[in-house]
Structure formats: structure tokens, C-alpha cells
């Protein structure tokens, strides 16, 4: 992909409601994942690694933690004079400060920004899709097929989210049928909501849809236009996961204890950038016992840790035991406490001697800054 040719758009609030526990105080984009990242780091790094130098982040609500995380965009080298990262807060019009209801309205509210950009193409991503995708390949496929729109899709069980499209294709790869998924467990080709098209086409589609008061991007823009526009699919073949619930968040996290899965998400040629915390490396005390775990910097481990993921600054005191759990940033596990199948949000404190236990298919969630 040529510099300055593709504009990136990220929806930071995509499917917030699928993960109410973790998005109560933050956007989907700022949900922590994989020990040291926030979900937005993945689409943002994919874009930067593909040479995109201008990214608009559309926000709707709860975006203060997202702004804290993104700052001036330096960790992604997006603090620029020209181009760079632009946070697009919800201003629906002069003087007002409404909140976007849907994807079309969000794009319409950002149309001024989109129009001012001089890029030829636009690629849009959601934050609940975790992948390490070379968007350059998507771009090459788009140009090779001559499609008007290319949508990345995955084959498998569709996530349990509203408005997820499933596709059928003709022999040339063009989407000739699409419907909005309504549950079911059979394998399908489902949309990853990564859309690539000419910026001028997006502007036209959004203006039209907003003019007709259409609300649903999938049904009213994509599915309606399957005949009029040449819409192609691009099959994602690397690591790709779509978070649709706390359960899938938990199982996708636990999967990362497998080195093969990790290798798919953390490819040497596609580094994942995040805001640094400048904490010291993790410290394992005498008497600690840690195995099969993913541990970020700043952690202190004095007790036992097994089959778990520890985010930056987590502390496991002496005699404590952490199993099959995910401890978000700065979680404190007191001495001799036992936790199993638990997800603790940021700065949660489990008092000494406490015993918390969830189930692998129904983890126990401890909210942000909660002291138990």
C-alpha cells in the first residue's frame, strides 16, 4: 500500500454491549487483552504496519480511558504534523453534542473529517475483532478483483452478535448472497466488519443512507447494494477471533497460553504496539511457583500461579494461589487467597485468605477497583 493512499477508521465502541462487564466504564477499544494490550492496539497496529499514516478513531461514549490510552498517538508513531491519529468525539452537528446511534450515523457525523482527507481509499475496522492481519494483502486483493467493496470474512461458527452478516460467493469471489446471522452453530462465512473501499464511494453511500434515514449499515448499505455494487470477500486465514461475550473473552485469552496460538497473534513482521508503562520486568520471589502463565512487566509473584494471564502490575502475594484466571492491571491478590476461574478488573483487590472460584465456562468477574 502506498503512503497516503488509505485512510483508516476504527470504531472504538463497536459491540460494547456484548461485553458489559468490561465496557461499563470504557469503550470496547480500551478493553485490556493479552496481558499488556488494549483491544484497539490490534486494529491500530495492523493499520500502521500496513503503512497507513492517518487514522480516525470514532468514539461514542465512555471514551476517557481510550483517550488516556491513545494520548497523542506516539506509541503507534501516529503523532504527526501531517496525518496522524484523530479522535472523533460525537459531535453530530454545530452546537449540539449528540451521541451516535448506529454505524451510519457515526460515519455521517465524521463525514466532514473523512471528506477533508485526501486519501483515495478507506478501510474500517471494529475493536472486538482481534487479529494480526496484513491489510496490504487485503488491499492487493481489492485491486486485483476490481471490486467496489471488499469485506474480510472468516469461516467458522459466527459470533453471537447482532447484525453479523454471513455470505455466499460466486466462483469469482463476489458476494452473491448475504444475510444477517440469527444464531446457529453450523459453520458459515461471516463478516469481520473490515471494509475496504474508495473513500468517495463511502462518502456517497453514507450520505445517501443518512438522507434516507437508514440506520443499519449491514442491511441498508451492504446487503441492499449486492447487485448494484461489486462486493467481494477476503478470507482471513491467520489468527482471528471475534469477542462476543465475557465467555469468549475468557476462552480467547486462555487460548493464548498455547504457543502456536500466540505465534499467530504476535507475528515478528507485525509488531503490536501499545502505550508503555515503564514498569520494571516481572519479579519472581524465592518460593514462588509459576507455570503455564503469561506474565507482563511490573508483576510481582510471590505465590502460586498456574494457567493464568497476569496484566501489568498484578501482584500475587505469598501463599496465594491463582489458577485459570485473568488478572487485569494492578490486581492485588492478598496472602493465602485462592482464586480460580476468575477475571479481576483493573486495581481489584482480593483480601488475604479469600477464596473465589468461578467455572471455566462461566468465569467469576470482579469489577474495577472492587475490594473483596
Amino acid at each position, binding site marked *: 500500500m502506498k503512503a497516503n493512499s488509505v485512510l483508516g477508521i476504527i470504531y472504538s465502541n463497536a459491540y460494547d454491549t456484548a461485553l458489559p462487564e468490561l465496557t461499563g466504564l470504557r469503550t470496547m477499544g480500551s478493553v485490556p487483552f*493479552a*496481558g*499488556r494490550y488494549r483491544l484497539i492496539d490490534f486494529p491500530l497496529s495492523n493499520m500502521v504496519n500496513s503503512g497507513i499514516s492517518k487514522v480516525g478513531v470514532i468514539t461514542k461514549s465512555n471514551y476517557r480511558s481510550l483517550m488516556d490510552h491513545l494520548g497523542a498517538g*506516539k506509541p503507534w508513531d501516529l503523532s504527526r504534523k501531517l496525518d496522524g491519529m484523530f479522535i472523533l468525539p460525537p459531535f453530530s452537528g454545530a452546537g449540539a453534542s449528540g451521541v451516535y446511534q448506529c454505524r451510519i450515523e457515526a460515519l455521517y457525523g465524521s463525514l466532514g473529517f473523512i471528506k477533508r482527507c485526501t486519501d483515495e481509499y478507506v478501510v474500517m475496522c471494529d475493536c472486538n475483532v482481534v487479529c494480526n492481519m496484513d491489510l496490504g494483502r487485503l488491499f492487493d486483493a481489492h485491486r486485483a478483483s476490481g471490486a467496489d467493496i471488499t469485506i474480510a470474512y472468516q469461516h467458522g461458527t459466527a459470533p453471537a452478535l447482532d447484525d453479523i452478516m454471513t455470505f455466499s460467493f460466486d466462483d469469482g469471489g463476489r458476494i452473491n448472497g448475504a444475510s444477517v446471522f440469527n444464531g446457529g452453530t453450523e459453520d458459515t462465512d461471516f463478516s469481520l466488519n473490515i471494509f475496504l473501499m474508495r473513500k468517495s464511494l463511502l462518502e456517497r453511500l453514507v450520505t445517501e443512507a443518512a438522507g434516507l434515514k437508514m440506520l443499519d449499515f449491514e442491511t441498508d448499505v451492504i446487503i441492499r447494494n449486492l447487485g448494484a455494487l461489486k462486493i467481494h470477500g477476503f478470507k482471513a486465514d491467520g489468527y482471528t477471533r471475534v469477542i462476543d461475550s465475557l465467555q469468549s473473552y475468557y476462552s480467547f485469552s486462555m487460548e493464548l*497460553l498455547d*504457543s502456536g496460538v*500466540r505465534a499467530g*497473534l*504476535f507475528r515478528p513482521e507485525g*509488531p*503490536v*504496539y*501499545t502505550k*508503555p508503562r*515503564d*514498569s*520494571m*520486568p*516481572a*519479579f*519472581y*520471589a*524465592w*518460593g*514462588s*511457583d*509459576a*507455570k*503455564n*502463565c*503469561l*506474565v*507482563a*512487566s*511490573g508483576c510481582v509473584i510471590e505465590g502460586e500461579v498456574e494457567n493464568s*494471564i*497476569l496484566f501489568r502490575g498484578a501482584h500475587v502475594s505469598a501463599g496465594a494461589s491463582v489458577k485459570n484466571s485473568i488478572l487485569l492491571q494492578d490486581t492485588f491478590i492478598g496472602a493465602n487467597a485462592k482464586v480460580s476461574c476468575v477475571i479481576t478488573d483493573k486495581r481489584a483487590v482480593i483480601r488475604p485468605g479469600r477464596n473465589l472460584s468461578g467455572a471455566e465456562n462461566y468465569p467469576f468477574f470482579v469489577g474495577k477497583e472492587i475490594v473483596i
Partner: protein
Amino acid sequence: MVKKECIAMLLAGGQGSRLGILTKNIAKPAVPYGGKYRIIDFPLSNCVNSGIDTVGVLTQYRPLELNDYIGNGQPWDLDRMNGGVHILSPYQQMEGSQWYKGTANAIYQNIQFIDRYAPEYVLILSGDHIYKMDYSRMLDYHKDKKADCTIAMLEVPWDEASRFGLMLVREDGSIAEFEEKPKEPRSNKASMGVYVFTWKVLREYLLLDEADAASSNDFGKDLIPRMHSDGRGLFAFPFDGYWKDVGTIESLWDANLDILNPKIDLDLSDENWKIYSNSPASPPHYLAVGARVQNSIIAEGCTVEGSLDYSVLFANVSVGKGAEVKYSIVMPGTVIEEGACVQYAIVAENTRIGARAVVGECPEDVSNRDDWGVAVVGSGLSIGAGSVVKAKTMVENDIAEGTK
């Protein structure tokens, strides 16, 4: 150019030849330390945390690697439009050019750089020490004393004092006398090589020192003694935290293991005095099912399947099944294969320790204690499977499989 009250000049110096193979490809300030840092992170972070946002780094040896590490200064918040961090190498002038002759000459050659910021004070630092220090307190002391030069001072054990430049200090903090590494020390107050100068005065003495053909153009040997004999106001600023010169293999090894010693006062996790570094974008580290880790620190991107005791693993190191690492420092990207043993050793970056190879020896396994020392493996090397590296060895070339 907006005026700065105080700027820092960091003498990143020469090659650091006492670190041998570790400084073959990098300048000494760029030597890795403490699992994720480089030595220069300490003075740079101290500067930023002390509110000093303009730092000139003077080096003529391997500036490229230092440049590469420091980049635009962003990790230390030193990517400024006005100020920030600048690498200063010697350059050609109309009337010819020369390499830096001594520490004072290095500053002399960069008078123009300093004048650009028209500072009232200049802080002179070296890139050889691990310590956390609030230079703003030293600057306040300098101002309070209306000093021309203030020297940071540390009390060292009397039996080590003769290794240092010492100062006899009066009650008011002023310096009565200097002794450079005396046989019979009369003081245990050592200079840390950290100076605050009033720029107007320093500038004058730099010109005097340069004009003096007999001078070796060194701060400690020439310039400061001259100021002293001229009766200028020289004061000592007491410092009592952790401070370690990491100029030798042994002291570098010690300083790393100090982090793991709870009795030693060096807290790298202090939120109010962070040490910043330019870290690679690596995922969290992974401890496998068979891993055993005791009193060690592990940086991001590592994979540990073996066992670790009293050791420091830098980013992206991998320790294979059954491998043992004890009392050792393993620098970024190194691979320790299955069943290998690394003990009392420093292994540099991107090295491969082959399966079942043994690097270093425990002091108790060496018959003559004088033969014992830390083993060192240079960067990018490959130690063949099953080979043995004795204590105190410095490996500079690949070692073939099975070499004993």
C-alpha cells in the same frame, strides 16, 4: 530558541574497554542492564524526572548504535522542539577538526551548542553509573551556596576510598582539598563525577583550559583543580542512595544482581521516579508447565521452559526444557537450548547457547579461587551443543560443538 535555566551534558565517553567484548559493537552507555534498561537510561531518566529537558550526549565511539537506541528521545519524553536529547559527535570546522581530547575538551568543542540555550547552569554527567538522583535538589543547593561548581559526593567504605577521587569538605559544604586516588586516604567522600557549573564560569575556564597546552583537558585532573586554586566557590553535594560504577564485568554483574537483593536500596518500581527505556514491542513472557523460577526478573517476550535462579532475563530470551540459569545475566534475544547450563555468567545479545552446553562455573567448583570469575559470551555468537566455557572466560568467537 527559548532560554533554559539548566541543561545537561552527558559524557558518554569512549569505548569502555574494561567491559571487553560487551562494548565491541556498542558504546558503554548502551550496555544492557536490569532486564530492560541500558546504562544511559539512568542519567536520562534522572534528567527528565528532575525537570531537565535538554541533554547533549557527547560521544565519538559508535554514535550510530547510541543514536539507534535513543532515536528521537521519545521513550524519555525528550523529543522536544526546543531542547530534547541530541547526540553530539566531533565535526569538521573551517579551521580543521579534532576528536575529543578529554572530558573538558569535549564540552569545549560544544560551547556553541550550549550557548544556543543560554543556560545559567550546566549539569555534567557521565554515562557509566547506575543511580537515581534528583538533580533539581543539587541545583537548588548550588544556587543556595552561590557556588561556581558543585560536585556530587558519596561516602564510600574507607577500605575502598583509595580507588576514588576524594574531597576534604568543610562544615559549610565547601571543598577544602582534592585527592585523586590517594594511597592513604584522609577522606571517604568520593566524587560521583556529577557536576553543576555556573555556565558563565565554566565557559571561562573551558577557554583557559583549552589555551593551556600542558593540560590534559580533563575535568577532574585539570579544570576543577584550576578553579580550586583560583579560589572559586566549589561545594560538595552529599548523596546517599545506591550508586554503582559499572565499568568492569564484575561490577556490571554485581549491579544486575543487586536488583534481586532485597537488602540493597535500588527500587526500580518506584512510580514517582520511573526509569524510562526504549523497549521493543514484545508480548508478555510465558512460563511453560515445567518452568521453575526463583528470585529472578524476567522481561517481556521471554519463554521459559527450564529453571531460573537469582538471574536477570532481558526481552525475548528463551530458556529451553531442562536448561538451568543461575546467578546470570542474559541479554535480549538470546536462546538457551535444552539442558544447557548458564551460571555466574553474562551472555550478550542474540547469542545461542547450544543444548547441554555449560557456560561459567560456581565459585565453589573452582579449586583455586583466583581462577574464578564471571564468564562472558559476546553478542551474536553460537556456543556449540555440549561445549564447556570455563569461569572467567571471555568468549569472542563461535565455539564448535563439544569443545571442552
